[in-house]
């Protein structure tokens, strides 16, 4: 401390360091808010894309690229209304929710799987743990819409439990996955739902 007392330049250096740390702290603490803002802007663009005839054509020809709008997911129980993009890469999921590309397209027969952020990037699936049997999930695609009904209480599986998104031939279902617990990626929480009505032929 005496060193700081006798050297003015040292005091200035410490002041600058404290300002730098403060800026870093604001940046780090504001990161979740930034991701939410980013996701909001992306969603705005995705909504426009979802309504475009070009996307409708690409959807019908199954020529969607990773990051393209795919479907709109609505979960009235927890206030979710976001556009889901194709793909579950880290980049694609900046839109908030992404469709597992190895699973059928929404409303088709089989196990349709969608992953969504539970924190950051709009955190659309922040409260999926509150869903229960009978809750409705609506998917609106460029070529139609369908409704799923949650079939069981959400359950938690290890992060590498990929069987939850495995195909279910002849059975139209929807699986939502997100990280669990909130802010951690150690496990995944899973919501399973069955389609109400008839699936669109693949």
């Amino acid at each position, binding site marked *: 401390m005496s060193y700081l*007392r006798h050297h003015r330049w040292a*005091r200035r250096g*410490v002041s600058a360091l404290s300002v730098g*740390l403060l800026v870093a702290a604001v940046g780090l603490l504001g990161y*979740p808010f930034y991701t939410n803002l980013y996701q909001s802007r992306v969603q705005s663009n995705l909504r426009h894309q979802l309504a475009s005839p070009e996307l409708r054509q690409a959807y019908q020809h199954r020529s969607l690229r990773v990051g393209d709008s795919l479907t709109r997911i609505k979960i009235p129980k927890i206030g979710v209304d976001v556009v889901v993009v194709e793909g*579950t890469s880290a980049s694609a999921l900046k839109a908030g929710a*992404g469709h597992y590309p190895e699973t059928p397209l929404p409303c088709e027969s089989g196990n349709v799987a969608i992953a969504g952020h539970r924190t950051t990037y709009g955190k659309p699936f922040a409260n999926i743990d509150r869903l229960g049997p009978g809750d409705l999930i609506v998917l609106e695609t460029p070529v139609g819409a369908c409704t799923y009904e949650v079939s069981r209480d959400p359950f938690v599986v290890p992060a*590498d439990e990929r069987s939850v998104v495995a195909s279910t031939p002849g059975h139209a279902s929807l699986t939502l996955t997100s*990280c669990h617990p909130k802010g951690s*990626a150690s496990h995944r929480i899973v919501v399973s739902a069955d389609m109400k009505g008839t699936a669109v032929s693949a």
Partner: protein
Amino acid sequence: MRFRRVGAAIGTCLCAGMLLAGTAGADTPEVYVGSAAGKALDLTMTLNGAANSLTFGVSDAKVDSTLSATAHAAGELLSGTLQTAQVKGDNSSQANPQTCGPVAVPAADVGLSLNTACAASSVTVANGLPVATGQGSVAALSVNMASLVKTLQLTQPLNQVLTPIFQGIGQVPTVGQPLVDVLNSVLNTETVNASLGNSGSNVTVNGKTVTSTATAAGGVIKLLPSPVGTNPNGLVSTDPLATITVSSSQAQSVYDRVTGKSNATFNAALVTVHFNPTLKVPDISVTPGQTQSLFAGTPLQTDITVANGATTTNPDGSMGATADGVRVDLLRDAADATNKSALLSLKFAHAEAGVGGTPAVIKPLPQPQLPRDLPRTGGTPWIPMAGAGALVLALIVRRSALWAKDR
């Protein structure tokens, strides 16, 4: 045009195709070759020790995976009626309608007469599927006895000729005057009359198979075909001394474009011989693999050899089928001490077909490597913790700087 062995041609083409197609393991295009060849008749006349050969009703067809299709056809090879149709490339075709012309006979003094010979050929390649067809034919052939009499040395009394014939078949030991009259009546007409069929070669490619088919229609040979008189029973008989009927032969090879497997089949020709009722000899059948002699030891000696068919598998997996036809050796030269060389040698109904290839090799698209874990959607908890730590540290450092300044 020469007939080459189908197997050798296919093998060569396949080897070349595979070399051009590229290395194994990468995407390689499909390679196939199909060919077919048919020959209705080979005729060889031996006169004064010199052999004259004529080939009638020949055709061949060939297609390959380069979308090349070729067909040849000729009614008679020497007459210059050879037709060729050839195209290469998709959506192309060439058709030569049937044309007929006179047959060239190199040894006219033997009394060989032939009707016109005809040929037609066509090839098409449509939607990547080639088809080649060739067809050759000659209507009929006859050999006049009058000109062969000298060659046959039939100057002795006819009963000296006929007696050993009947003794050979053991039916009519005594030659009656009516039959002598019958045979005398034809000495100045035809000795041999042969009606010939067509030969057809066709190679067709569809989405699943390459099919090569060669057919060679048989024919009917009438030995002393126009006797007119009464038989020993007093009935009028107009039947030839012997009627030799050769059935058609067929060879077919089919290549499965999906599995790359080939299959070959053949139907060999059969021969039946019907005798003049005067002889009271029952009909006989000559089956594949057999040789039958008629009127042995006489100038009218006729040897019938019916060859069997065969299928072959080449080292490259291609398969071929051959339905070898029927050989009929007619008339022996009495001047020949060995009595072995036939004046007329007819080879009927030869058909061969072959096909082979390798299916296209399409390297499967790499399956996307799925990540081990389900997607990470929980954020990074160290970021807010690091932010909080940085804030605390900033406050401590700032407080220290202010404290030092105040002191």
